[in-house]
């Protein structure tokens, strides 16, 4: 039952695809080929990303991440988050599990908003494509405005999520504590 529930959304999508195949076969064929293309990309990218996150979980101590990216990391923390985000490292969905791991390890919401935002909007290879097709002034203005916006959004998210933390974080925080105790024992 719980397995069915977990996969409810993909199953619904399957029906949408089936409906589309009947009513709009052209769109269905295009959708299927796009989905297949993305599936191949994900199958190639997601396993190594998750293993990297596993290594990070096991090897990098919490106080290090807290020092580099935590609430007290200041300008340096924001700089690290920005630099990490702009590296050419693939699509945004790769960044979500990374962000989750980093938050569990003590990174601040402010820095993680900048990280995600830079990943999505300020990636170096993407900026090069943008410059080519929309011009250098468009790209530069959008870059600076987006960076300013990210700082503001990060500030608001830090304030709001500190005051009203998500229940999921408290639970995973406890799980993290348990994992860490286990890691101590295996040493």
């Amino acid at each position: 039952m719980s397995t069915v529930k977990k996969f409810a959304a993909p199953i619904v999508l399957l029906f949408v695809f089936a409906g589309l195949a009947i009513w709009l076969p052209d769109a269905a064929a295009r959708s299927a080929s796009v989905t297949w293309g993305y599936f191949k990309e994900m199958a190639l990218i997601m396993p190594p990303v998750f293993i990297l996150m596993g290594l990070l979980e096991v090897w990098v101590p919490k106080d290090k991440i807290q020092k580099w990216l935590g609430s007290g990391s200041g300008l340096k923390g924001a700089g690290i988050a920005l630099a990490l985000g702009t590296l050419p490292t693939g699509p945004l969905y790769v960044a979500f599990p990374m962000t989750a791991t980093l938050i569990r390890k003590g990174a601040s919401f402010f820095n993680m908003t900048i990280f995600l935002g830079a990943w999505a909007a300020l990636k170096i290879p993407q900026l090069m494509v943008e410059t080519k097709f929309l011009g250098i002034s468009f790209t530069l203005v959008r870059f600076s405005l987006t960076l300013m916006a990210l700082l503001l959004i990060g500030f608001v998210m830090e304030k709001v999520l500190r005051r009203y933390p998500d229940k999921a974080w408290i639970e995973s925080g406890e799980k993290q504590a348990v994992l860490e105790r286990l890691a101590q024992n295996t040493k």
Partner: protein
Amino acid sequence: MTAVIMIYALLGVGLVASLLKSRARTAKAFKVAGKALLKSAPSLLTVLGIVGLTLGILTPETITRLVGAEAGFTATIIASVIGAITLIPSLVAFPLAGSLLRSGATVMTISAFVTTLVMVGVVTAPMEVKELGKRFALLRNALSLIAALVIAGIMGVLL
């Protein structure tokens, strides 16, 4: 492709270092990774399906028709809605934005499209919610949408 090479290079270096230090801990890292991957699988598949559907239905031609049909404010709103919902690879999105700009769309419309496209992710939301929680995902996307519209407004005036 660079991204794939980079990720695998990182993985190679990390794995060698980890194996040299402790095999037990490396095995644990794999266990943590496997569990996390299984937990994320349903939302990954969902995102995959939705991305495929939106891109299959909203082809560059359809987007051009929708955005190009109306000039001015309506076009900007349509562009930002399309940008917020879809996840279009930048190698497709920027040429499309460029051709829209040349065929008469305003800078405000194009920047609304580009900024919402990169900052707001409705199709990736199931995964964002799964990994980072409802509150985080909702807040980030809502604030990003507002920011994108403001940025589009400013760019329309500036450029």
